[in-house]
């Protein structure tokens, strides 16, 4: 930790929101530090989601959430080519499976229009099946939302923070913020990596946002109520049966289960919505996974018997209210970005811009000068429909055969400005071990290539046999 340095902004938390906020402040000219307690970014909610870039068609009208989602959506499309971030243009269909569903579509369509999503369109059952011939034939029609798309949920936040770091921000890992005090002009934060001085704290601690407030402000303005979502990822062969994102008609109880292709060429079904107290463990449950598989097969019967490639679960940092919990305390130079429950991947860039405005509204000691010529780092593309590293010459060789991950990609992920800090981080940067065999063929080599580089490494020791 650089003792004594005074930062303009300390962003607590390296989830997708923290990464976007750190980027925004850096580009705006602030001396920025991001403090993450995990060994890598995406150690909390942001590591496991549905990876949909939402239009906000079904978000609460006139809410901060819909505003940030739509701003985030626009900015992602604006910047993605310069950062080499992929987009799989799928569109979505909210499919009605019974009469009650079909009636609900009217309200959903009205809400979409109210939210300014004007290109939605009703489809007859015949049109639905023409678009998705493998869908179960008993559909009652759908609402087409052409703007809903699929992205890479990991390269986006990595790009945001990489751009911040390449333009001068600092990112510190294994740095849990444990306490701190505000002396009327600056914060002295205590972290597990030493003290940090900063003029502003932005709380992007996700599932621990309320705990951070308790620790530093003495009380929390909201309470996190983790909500787990489990997923099943099918073999890539499943992608032949689906083009469009299939969304359910939400009812009072749940938003329901989505069936979608992933940008990596698989098909995923999920998430569930399960309230729990535990903020650390996002376990999967066999019985629940089986019901998800059954739901997928009910929607697309051809998925029966399709091999399962992966299963996972994520925790939504929901709060006791169904809204984002964003607030600014000008006195104490504190901004909280809390309760970013189920749309944060989409909204992150919009939230970052909103936070920058909240900051601008505070009384400033000095004005920030936006960077004139910021660096635009280019991410490694992992999307299946775009050119991958293995298709370019001199990649070393292929280490992970299922996902065609090259040695050059693995080496790059272990070096660079934001090297992988743990096994999950390496997988998310490269996809090594995330394919059909889940590491049967490649894990030993990945263990050797990553030796000494990762927290909780693949190998615990050398073997002297």
């Amino acid at each position, binding site marked *: 930790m650089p003792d004594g340095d005074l930062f303009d902004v300390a962003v607590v938390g390296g989830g997708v929101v923290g990464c976007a906020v750190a980027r925004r402040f850096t580009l705006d000219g602030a001396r920025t530090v991001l403090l993450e307690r995990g060994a890598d970014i995406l150690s909390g909610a942001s590591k496991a989601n549905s990876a949909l870039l939402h239009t906000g068609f079904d978000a609460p009208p006139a809410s901060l959430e819909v505003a940030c989602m739509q701003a985030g959506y626009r900015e992602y499309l604006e910047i993605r080519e310069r950062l080499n971030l992929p987009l799989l243009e799928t569109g979505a269909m909210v499919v009605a499976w019974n009469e009650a569903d079909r009636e609900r579509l009217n309200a959903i369509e009205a809400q979409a229009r109210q939210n300014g999503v004007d290109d939605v369109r009703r489809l007859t059952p015949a049109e639905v099946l023409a678009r998705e011939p493998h869908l179960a034939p008993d559909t009652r029609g759908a609402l087409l939302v052409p703007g809903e798309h699929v992205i890479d949920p990991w390269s986006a936040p990595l790009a945001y923070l990489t751009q911040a770091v390449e333009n001068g921000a600092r990112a510190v890992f294994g740095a849990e913020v444990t306490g701190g005090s505000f002396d009327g002009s600056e914060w002295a934060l205590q972290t597990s990596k030493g003290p940090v001085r900063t003029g502003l704290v932005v709380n992007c601690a996700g599932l621990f946002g309320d705990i951070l407030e308790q620790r530093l402000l003495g009380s929390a303005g909201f309470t996190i109520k983790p909500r787990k979502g489990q997923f099943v990822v099918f073999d890539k062969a499943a992608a032949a049966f689906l083009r469009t994102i299939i969304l359910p008609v939400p009812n009072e109880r749940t938003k329901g289960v989505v069936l979608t292709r992933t940008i990596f060429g698989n098909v995923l079904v999920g998430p569930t919505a399960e309230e729990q107290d535990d903020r650390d463990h996002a376990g999967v449950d066999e019985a629940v996974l089986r019901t998800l598989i059954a739901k997928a097969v009910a929607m697309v019967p051809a998925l029966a018997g399709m091999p399962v490639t992966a299963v996972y679960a994520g925790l939504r940092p929901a709060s006791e209210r169904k809204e984002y919990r964003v607030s600014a305390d000008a006195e104490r130079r504190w901004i909280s970005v809390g309760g970013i429950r189920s749309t944060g991947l989409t909204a992150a860039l919009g939230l970052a811009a909103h936070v920058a405005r909240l900051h601008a509204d505070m009384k400033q000691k000095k004005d920030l000068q936006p960077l004139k010529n910021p660096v635009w780092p280019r991410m490694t593309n992992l999307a299946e429909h775009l050119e991958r590293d293995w298709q370019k010459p001199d990649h070393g*060789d292929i280490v992970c055969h299922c996902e065609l991950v090259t040695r050059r990609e693995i080496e790059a992920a272990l070096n660079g400005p934001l090297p992988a800090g743990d096994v999950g981080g390496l997988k998310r940067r490269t996809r090594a071990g995330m394919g059909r065999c889940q590491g049967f063929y490649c894990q030993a080599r990945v263990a050797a290539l990553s*030796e000494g580089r990762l927290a909780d490494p693949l190998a615990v*020791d050398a073997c002297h046999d």
Partner: protein
Amino acid sequence: MLAMTETIATDVAIVGGGPAGIAAALVLRGRGVGRVTILEREADVGGVPRHCGHPPFGMREFGRVLTGPAYAQRLAEAARQAGVEIRTGLSVTALRPGARLDAMCAAGPVEIVAGRVILATGARESSRAARLISGDRPVGVITTGTLQHEVHIEKMLPFRRPVIVGTELVSLSAVATCRKAGIRPVAVIEAADRPTARRPLDLFPRLLGIPMHYRATIAEIRGRGRVEAIAIRLADGSMRELACDGVLLTGRFTPEAALVRPSHLVLDDGSGGPAIDQFGRCSDPSYFAAGNLLRPIETAGWSYREGARIGAMVADDLAGTLPPYVTTTTIVRGANVKLVVPQRLSASGHTGSLDSLQIRVDAATTGPLVARDGSQVLWCRHGRLLPERRILIPLSALQGPRAAGGTIIIEAAGSGSG
């Protein structure tokens, strides 16, 4: 996309340089086929035995007992001496109609144009995800294949005190590998009430002082970074937590059919591999398949002999002496039959085809295993049927004169398990 940088033209392209692929290559060269090319994505040929650091391999092939790596080396040497062209570090990425393959090597993309293709990509163990195991998803949950590769090739230890799941033959290799590497398994757990591989697994772990739990299933894996414990559910319904730093999932093999599934070839749901006729021909007759890709799972020796058989049939096919590709009989799985290979019969009367149907049942039963055509029983055997045992039905029993388009049903409609 870049332009294709290289084209390999060959009489026979063999995808996978394990025992099956090499055996096929040796026979083809022996029969005078000019260009026989093995395409192998690893740095060396030899297949899975390369990292099975234990005997017994090679008894039939080389007349002596070898360790896996020594056996793999012998195979590689034999292939080189026979003039087989070997391309390692070359990963086949797609199968195209008419024996054309897309592949990739370090220098760039490769296109293969062959007279015939033999698929011999082997089998692998099911992952934790495919088994839908509950709990956290920490580091330290691996399969035997990964363990052996890590210990014998990379010289690293994936854990020190794992729980071993399963009691198949490969579980024995797992125990042996652990022992050699100084890894001390905490326990072996098995869902059934007896070991899957009867001998010597009923004795071996006990001899090593490893506790065995039968009728025990994983309730949940626990751990944040690395595995910290697993909770198991015991026969009486009670739960027990075993502290450990890894989970070793053994067996539950599945063919490595990654190339077949998205391709034009018909995949058989029972075996998980490509559907073949008794000549090893896939649904595109320019493709053949051999070895553990055909079904989970046989030994290296079996795969080798099967590869040799199929190699001979490919040589016949190139010489124009193989019967035409016309399915005359479809073999259908009936009650309690997990898999049947081959799944189709073309015209009969050719010597040198595979000589039996390979059958596996889903659950242990006592009672007859029957092959019938409508109501006519063609073959029947009484006795105990166990899921881990291969059962063979001689093709000669099935190849009476029958109308084209016929169907033979294989069923094990016996009673009871346990």
